[in-house]
C-alpha cells in the first residue's frame, strides 16, 4: 500500500506555512471515530487513548468560534482525518472554486493525516441537496471525475482518498463496474481510495451482488483508510431488502465479518467508525473503535500490503 498519511508536509508548501503547528501524530494501524462536538469534554478527559478522529470538512469552514477551537484541541492530541462531504467530485459541473479554496485552507491549517472525499455529487447548478448522489459509470464520467480529482490534488498539494458510495439504484447507461471505475481513477490520478465496507455491504445487498466478489475486484493496494458504520433495513418496490446507509447505530455483524476479511488479507489500514445521527454517548463510540482496533492489532507488525514484514 502506498502511504497516504505521509504527504502532510506537502500541505505546508501548498498553504505557504512555515513549520508545522501540530505534532506529526501517525495514523498507521489505528482505529478512529467521527468527532462530534458534544463528545469533546469526554474525549479530552479520556487522556492518552490511541486513536484518530475524522471531521466533515464543511463543518469547519466558518471563520472562527468553537468549531475551530475544538478541532485545534483534538488535533494537538490525535491524528485527524479531514473528510469532505460536498465537493461534488462526481458531478458533471465544474468544481466550486471557492469551496475548493476553503478545503485547501483547512488542509494547510490542520495538517490532517488523511484527506478524503466521495465518488458522488450534491450540487446541481446552484442547488445543494445535502446528499451523496450517484453517477453513471462510463468513460465520459470517468474522464470528468479524474479531472476533478486532479484539480483537488493540485489545490491541496497531496493525494486524496476517494470513497466508494452506498447506492440505492443503478444507471441504465453505466458501462463500467464501480470497482473498474475506481481502479481506473487511481491509475489516472494517483489518488488513493477510502474503502467503506458498510457501503460495500449496502450496495451489494441493494443491487444483489456478492460483497466478497466486489472486495476481490477492489483495488486494495490503493486503500488508505476504511470506514465502518451502521445501516438500516427497508424494502424496495418488490418487498426485497433495500438497505440504507444511515450511520445511526452500531456496525452490523456482517460488516464486521467483511472488515475482518479485508484486514486479514491486506493488513491493518486506518479504520474509522462513522456515526452521524442518533449519536450515542462517547463510551459507546469508543467501544466500537476498540472493537475495530482489536481486529487491526491482530495483524499489527504486518505492513498494510499483504506482506508479513514489520511496519516501519
Amino acid at each position, binding site marked *: 500500500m502506498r502511504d497516504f498519511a505521509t504527504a502532510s508536509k506537502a500541505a505546508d508548501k501548498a498553504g505557504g506555512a512555515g513549520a508545522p503547528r501540530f505534532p506529526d501524530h501517525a495514523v498507521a494501524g489505528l482505529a478512529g471515530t467521527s468527532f462530534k462536538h458534544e463528545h469533546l469534554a469526554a474525549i479530552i478527559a479520556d487522556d492518552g487513548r490511541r486513536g484518530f478522529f475524522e471531521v466533515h470538512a464543511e463543518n469547519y469552514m466558518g471563520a472562527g*468560534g468553537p*468549531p475551530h477551537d475544538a478541532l485545534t484541541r483534538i488535533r494537538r492530541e490525535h491524528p485527524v482525518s479531514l473528510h469532505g462531504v460536498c465537493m461534488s467530485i462526481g458531478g458533471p459541473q465544474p468544481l466550486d472554486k471557492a469551496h475548493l479554496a476553503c478545503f485547501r485552507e483547512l488542509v494547510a491549517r490542520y495538517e490532517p493525516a488523511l484527506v478524503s472525499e466521495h465518488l458522488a455529487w450534491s450540487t446541481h447548478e446552484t442547488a445543494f*441537496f445535502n446528499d451523496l448522489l450517484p453517477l453513471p459509470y462510463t468513460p465520459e464520467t470517468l474522464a470528468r471525475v479524474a479531472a476533478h480529482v486532479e484539480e483537488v490534488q493540485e489545490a491541496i498539494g497531496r493525494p486524496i482518498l476517494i470513497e466508494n458510495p452506498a447506492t440505492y439504484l443503478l444507471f441504465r447507461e453505466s458501462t463500467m463496474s464501480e470497482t473498474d471505475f475506481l481502479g481506473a481513477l487511481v491509475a489516472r490520478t494517483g489518488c488513493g481510495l477510502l474503502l467503506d465496507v458498510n457501503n460495500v455491504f449496502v450496495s451489494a445487498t441493494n443491487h444483489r451482488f456478492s460483497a466478497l466478489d466486489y472486495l476481490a475486484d477492489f483495488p486494495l493496494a490503493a486503500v488508505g483508510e476504511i470506514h465502518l458504520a451502521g445501516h438500516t433495513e427497508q424494502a424496495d418496490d418488490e418487498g426485497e431488502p433495500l438497505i440504507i446507509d444511515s450511520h445511526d447505530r452500531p456496525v452490523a455483524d456482517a460488516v464486521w465479518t467483511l472488515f475482518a476479511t479485508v484486514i486479514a488479507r491486506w493488513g491493518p489500514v486506518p479504520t474509522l467508525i462513522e456515526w452521524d445521527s442518533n449519536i450515542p454517548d462517547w463510551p459507546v463510540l469508543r467501544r466500537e473503535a476498540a472493537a475495530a482496533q482489536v481486529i487491526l492489532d491482530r495483524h499489527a507488525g504486518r505492513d498494510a500490503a499483504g506482506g508479513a514484514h514489520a511496519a516501519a
Partner: protein
Amino acid sequence: MQRPEHARGEAGGGLTYAARFSPGLLDPLQPTPAFVSGPGGKRADKRYNVYRNNVTVSLIEALGAVFPAVRRITGEDFFRAVARAYVRARPPSSPLLFEYGRDFPDFIAAWDHAAPAPWLADVARLERAWLDAYHAADAAPLEAQALAAVPAERLADIVFVAHPAARVVRSPFAAVTIFAAHRQEGQAQTIDAGTPEDALVTRPGLTVAVRHLPAGGAVFAARLLAGAPFATAASEALAEAPGFDLAANLAGLLAAGAFTSIIAGDGR
C-alpha cells in the same frame, strides 16, 4: 445550439445525469427518472425515493439545527411543515449548511399558519444571528479602559471597529425573552409577547451572549457597529429614546465585547 463541453457524449437529450436526476429530489410530483433502475432493470421508485427522502429530511434537520427555539415553540409537526415548504422553495445555494436559512424568518413571517405567532419570525432572526456570531471570526474584544486613553475633545468623533460576531436584532415583540426561554429545556413561563425587545448578540470568546438592549440601545449599538461616529450614534439614540443613558449603554457594549478597537474620527 452548442452544448457545453462537459455534456457531450451523454445520453438524455443533452442534459447531464445531474440535470435529469435532480428535478424530482425536491418535487414529489415529478416521476422517478427513466434512466435509473434496480438490479436486472427492475423499477426503482422506492429506490429513488430514498434520495428524495434523504434530501428533504436532511435539509429539514439542517434548518432545525439552525432554529432550535423555533422548532421547540412550534412543535415538531408544525416545524416540519414549514421547513419542508421552505426547503422545496429555497434549497440551499451553499454546501455550508450553517449558512442556510437566511430568509427562513421572512418565509415564516409570510406563512399563513404562523400568523397567530407574529413574533416567531423575530425569534428566528435572533437564532440566525446567534449562529452567525457562533461561526464569526475570532477577535479579542476592546478593553473598556481603551476609551480612557481617548482625549476628551476627540471623543465625539471616535469610531469603533465592530467585533466580527457583534449583531443587533430589533423586534416589536418580546423576542429576546421568548428566545431565551426556548433555547433549552425548562419550566413553562408566561411571557407578554407584545413587549418590544431589541437584542445585542456578541461572542467575545467562545460563548455567544444575547443581551436585551434598553430603549435607544439598539439604534446606538447598530449605528456604532455600522461605523458611525460616537456623537452621531448618541444623538440618534437620544432622538429615539429621550431618557437614553449614554454612559450605561456604552459601558454595556464594551462589557459585551461588541468592538475590537477604536479609530480616531478623522481616520488617524
